[in-house]
């Protein structure tokens, strides 16, 4: 079947891949994980921890949301994404861990983060082409949405919205700046983001994959120059 060094190498790589999959997903190991680890790994996979079905209906039990505690819609989010948008907090630790994984790059601006990051997740319908993707998800016309970022309690410096930049972190590790209007309202940064495509990971090709649907998770945070 193989008959060459490259064929053997390919087969061995595949064996490693299979073994990695099995080791990473062994039921005993998943069962031994804490719920925090489960939530974090779901996030890493780009999956919203929020159930995609009504567990009450499924189990006949009165099941409380198994998602994170602060999944309630927040002010300014239009009805359009209200059902699918999940907001999680406490991701600063994970953000720093992710940044530390990226070797050889100085992130001197990390010290200047002036607000806690916020995780958002949006569900998209997949499509074979970018145009079809925009049409299926209702992005043919310009749209925008608002979110609030809480200021970090430990930050003691002055906040100047004109010097604030909003940055997005994606599961692939990609970072990009987010065009947005920033204002300081009652001790919070209010962002007006002009594009739902902020959820699309620039290092992934989800929009043009022939897949039924996928979750677009992103962590937004602010830095002050």
């Amino acid at each position, binding site marked *: *079947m*193989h*008959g060459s060094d*490259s*064929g*053997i*190498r*390919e*087969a*061995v*790589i*595949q*064996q*490693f*891949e*299979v*073994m*990695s*999959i*099995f*080791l*990473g*997903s*062994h*039921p*005993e*190991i*998943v*069962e*031994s*994980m804490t*719920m925090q680890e*489960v*939530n974090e*790994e*779901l996030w890493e*996979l780009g*999956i919203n*921890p929020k*159930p*995609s*079905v009504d*567990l009450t209906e*499924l*189990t*006949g*039990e*009165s*099941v*409380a*949301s*198994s998602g994170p505690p602060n999944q309630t819609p927040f002010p300014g989010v239009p009805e359009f994404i209200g059902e699918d948008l999940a907001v999680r907090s406490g991701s600063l630790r994970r953000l720093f861990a992710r940044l530390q994984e990226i070797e050889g790059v100085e992130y001197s601006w990390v010290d200047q983060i002036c607000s806690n990051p916020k995780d958002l997740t949006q569900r998209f319908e*997949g499509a074979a082409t970018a145009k079809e993707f925009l049409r299926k998800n209702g992005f043919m016309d310009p749209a925008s949405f608002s979110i609030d970022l809480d200021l970090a309690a430990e930050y003691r410096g002055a906040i100047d919205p004109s010097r604030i930049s909003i940055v997005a972190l994606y599961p692939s590790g990609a970072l990009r700046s987010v065009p947005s209007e920033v204002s300081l309202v009652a001790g919070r940064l209010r962002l007006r983001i002009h594009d739902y495509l902020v959820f699309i990971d620039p290092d992934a090709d989800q929009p043009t*994959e*022939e*897949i*039924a*649907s*996928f979750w677009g998770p992103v962590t937004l945070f602010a830095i002050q120059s």
Partner: protein
Amino acid sequence: MASGKDELRSISSEEWGDIYKRLRLYTWKRYKWLHYKIGVDLDDFVNESIYDTLRGTRRWPPVDENGFTKDVSLFFFLCQVVQSKISHFWSRERHNVVHRIDQDNASEEAIESFETLLAESAHIYPGLRQTKGSDSDAIDNEFENGLRDVVAGDDELRRIVELIIEDPSLRPKEIAESLGLANNKVYTALKRLRRRLMLLRSEFKGAE
């Protein structure tokens, strides 16, 4: 003694929420490429598995051929149900999937690799060291040597890997029992092994 139905009813809403999340994590970690390649919604398998178990279509706890109840946790049982459903799905769809990949002008090696990955992952245990063909010995040897290289200097992992090479179907608890280690110690070691394997796989790919 409580029946399976009674035991299922006694599971609290909070416990169901945790089981549901863990089952999704298991399913997506093991089969995410199935979603990415052909668009199947893996949550359907998760939901059907829970539904079937609650309705008694899949009986938990399972019984052996002598009618004795097997000691299998609900979560592990649900993982087996998901695996079974995906295995059946794969049996039905494999020809269509391979045909579609072929239409995308994928190379013969890529098709073979994907098909094997699908078939492997549709089982509960990996079919390591079961390669067939004239190069099977060379593949097995290189695989085993690669595994031993990756755990060199880590005596705990080395002992674990030797057991896995001997019998890939060993459960982590069985490995722990064989080596006289705590379960958590083995879980941590296996996570470490996975990280090293991913690194090794990248190095192999980079050398191509």
